[in-house]
């Protein structure tokens, strides 16, 4: 009976109810959209690390390597492979895997090419390395033409119509738990994964294969290494990936192509649960005897991708708290005001014999209905707002995790994550709106109930 009358009472004064409802909806929508946008952005930024199965990425940044047919991307410098074992040896580390990201430029002089028919499998180091041959065996790069990775200068003039490099990543041929291609990714491969015996075998990115019109069993030239057989095509999904590549090759092949000795340029590290990453970072730097090593965790990554400094994050937290406060005040004011406006109604109800408890029940019920409806509609609106925001949110991997050269930006995938539907957040928000609405409605009611019926009527 009370619910029926409360509903009837609310529906019979649509303007007042709508004003109250609008206050709650705006407040809740504001709160929900802020929470969901933050969560979605955070999920999008965390996704690449999560998909690689790693907690940390270790890289060495420095002067860009001197240009060669196969070179390390941007300012990545080689890390000797043996250092992976030092990282693995740390107590906090579960597993560490290295990969070698390279850019393989098309050869202008066919005489430099290595034919697929070459049965020897001998090392070609030196042939493909830097011109002066000084940067071998994992030594840091010497300064090179950092900006000339694309079709510019003498290489562009050499007659190559398409001088953009192919992004080639060398991966462990044994299925591994973390890295650009994990055990769990193998199901996404059409064809097969590498074996230890594979040498002139490649796995292509699905989009790359499509644009080059390549199929399984076809052959492809990678830099100077010609006639590589396509043994698999992987569908890596739509989102940007750390060490994502157009072409995957066995790690030893990538090492051979880079010609710098036993190196990697990215190490994926998985830590034990509940570990303080700051401590591990220090240990890794110590283990590698290198203070300039770049170690990226999801937290650093979020800061880097979103361009948030600590100050910005604090400002964001402050903004969030202000939003919560605004929501609180908006709903509170609506609830308080709408009940106080009804002072004469309460006075009349008291005059015709309604008990104080009955009036309280009525106000609580009405405000619960308003809070629930406003909370529900506000949650839906907030979700829609966050969807619209997400459409406009385009973010990419930070340059040091992005293996693609600047001239291939059209190939670079962006980061995205679905706007999450947190049932518990929605429920909490609806409950929050109901509680505030009821509490402040009740507060106003109790103020009126202190008055005699005549005093309440005179309040008008």
């Amino acid at each position, binding site marked *: *009976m009370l619910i029926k009358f409360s509903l009837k009472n609310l529906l*019979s*004064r649509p303007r007042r109810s709508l004003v109250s409802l609008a206050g709650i909806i705006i407040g809740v929508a504001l709160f929900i959209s802020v929470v969901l946008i933050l969560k979605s952005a955070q999920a999008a930024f965390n996704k690449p690390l999560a998909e690689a199965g790693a907690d940390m990425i270790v890289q060495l940044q420095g002067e860009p390597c001197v240009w060669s047919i196969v070179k390390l991307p941007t300012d990545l410098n080689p890390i000797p492979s043996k250092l992976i074992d030092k990282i693995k040896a740390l107590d906090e580390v579960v597993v560490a895997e290295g990969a070698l990201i390279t850019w393989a430029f098309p050869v202008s002089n066919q005489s430099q090419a290595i034919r697929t028919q070459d049965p020897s499998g001998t090392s070609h180091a030196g042939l493909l390395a830097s011109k002066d041959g000084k940067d071998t065996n994992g030594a840091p790069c010497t300064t090179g033409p950092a900006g000339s990775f694309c079709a510019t200068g003498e290489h562009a003039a050499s007659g190559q119509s398409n001088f953009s490099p192919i992004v080639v990543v060398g991966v462990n041929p044994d299925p591994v738990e973390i890295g650009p291609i994990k055990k769990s990714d193998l199901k996404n491969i059409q064809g097969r994964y590498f074996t230890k015996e594979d040498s002139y075998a490649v796995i292509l990115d699905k989009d790359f294969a499509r644009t080059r019109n390549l199929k399984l069993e076809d052959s492809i030239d990678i830099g100077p290494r010609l006639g590589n057989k396509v043994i698999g095509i992987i569908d890596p999904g739509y989102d940007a990936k750390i060490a994502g590549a157009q072409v995957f090759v066995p790690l030893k092949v990538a090492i051979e192509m880079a010609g710098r000795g036993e190196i990697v340029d990215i190490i994926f590290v998985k830590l034990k649960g509940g570990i303080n990453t700051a401590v591990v970072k220090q240990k890794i730097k110590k283990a590698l005897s290198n203070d300039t090593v770049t170690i990226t965790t999801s937290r650093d990554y979020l800061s880097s991708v979103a361009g948030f400094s600590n100050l910005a994050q604090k400002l964001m937290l402050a903004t969030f708290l202000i939003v919560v406060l605004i929501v609180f005040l908006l709903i509170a004011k609506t609830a308080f005001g709408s009940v106080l406006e009804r002072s004469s109604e309460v006075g009349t109800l*008291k*005059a015709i*014999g*309604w008990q104080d408890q009955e009036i309280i029940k009525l106000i609580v019920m009405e405000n619960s209905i308003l809070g629930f409806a406003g909370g529900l509609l506000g949650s839906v609106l907030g979700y829609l707002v966050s969807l619209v925001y997400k459409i406009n949110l385009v973010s990419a991997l930070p340059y040091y995790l992005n293996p693609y050269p600047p001239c291939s930006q059209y190939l670079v995938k962006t980061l995205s994550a679905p706007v999450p539907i947190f049932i518990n957040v929605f429920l909490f928000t609806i409950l929050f709106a109901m509680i505030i609405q009821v509490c402040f409605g009740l507060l106003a009611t109790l103020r009126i109930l202190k008055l*005699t*019926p*005549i005093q309440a009527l005179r309040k008008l």
Partner: protein
Amino acid sequence: MSIKLENVAKTFKAADIELNVLENINLQIKDKEAWVIFGKSGAGKSTLLSLIGGMDKPTNGKVIVDGVDLSTLNTNELANFRKEKIGYVFQAFNLFGNLKAWDNIILPIILEKNRKEKIDRVMAWADELGIKNRLNHLPGQLSLGEQQRVAILRAMINCPKIILADEPTAHLDRENASKIIEIFKKFNQEQAVTLILVTDHEAIAANFEHKFSLVPGTKVSLIN
């Protein structure tokens, strides 16, 4: 139901100003009597009515209804007293503009479960008062006379022993005013209800045997 007022006074305070609206009112009204309190605007008629109806508290003195001193009742008891024993008709009707006439009428019992008997009775009265076909309308869609009838039916729904009517004809034309007075008299006689009606029209007061004039600052002593 008898009503007795002993040395009742009511003072209103606004900022530093004290306004003695009622002073030394002594009054006794017997069961089933119909009384009219008349006087000019601001004489304290409505205040006196609200004190009798347990809707306000006197500054001094006692209001005794059916042998019970209202000042001894707590909030819930006062609410029950108003619900069961008092039917109050406001000068401005105080109908809920958002609720239909019928919902306004049953508002005092809207949360009750067993209300069929009361509803049947008030429906019959609505028919008698000629507003049965207007019950699905909002107050704003009714004439002032019809609104006043709705307010009277709301006051009568619990079959109260006392009807307190605060200038019930103030907004009505002469014809409608006469009809409303007849309705009150009818309830007074047929339902054995004690009636106290407040008005500033002596012509209306002339319809009633028991009456007294309220003049600001003068004492009233009407006790047998």
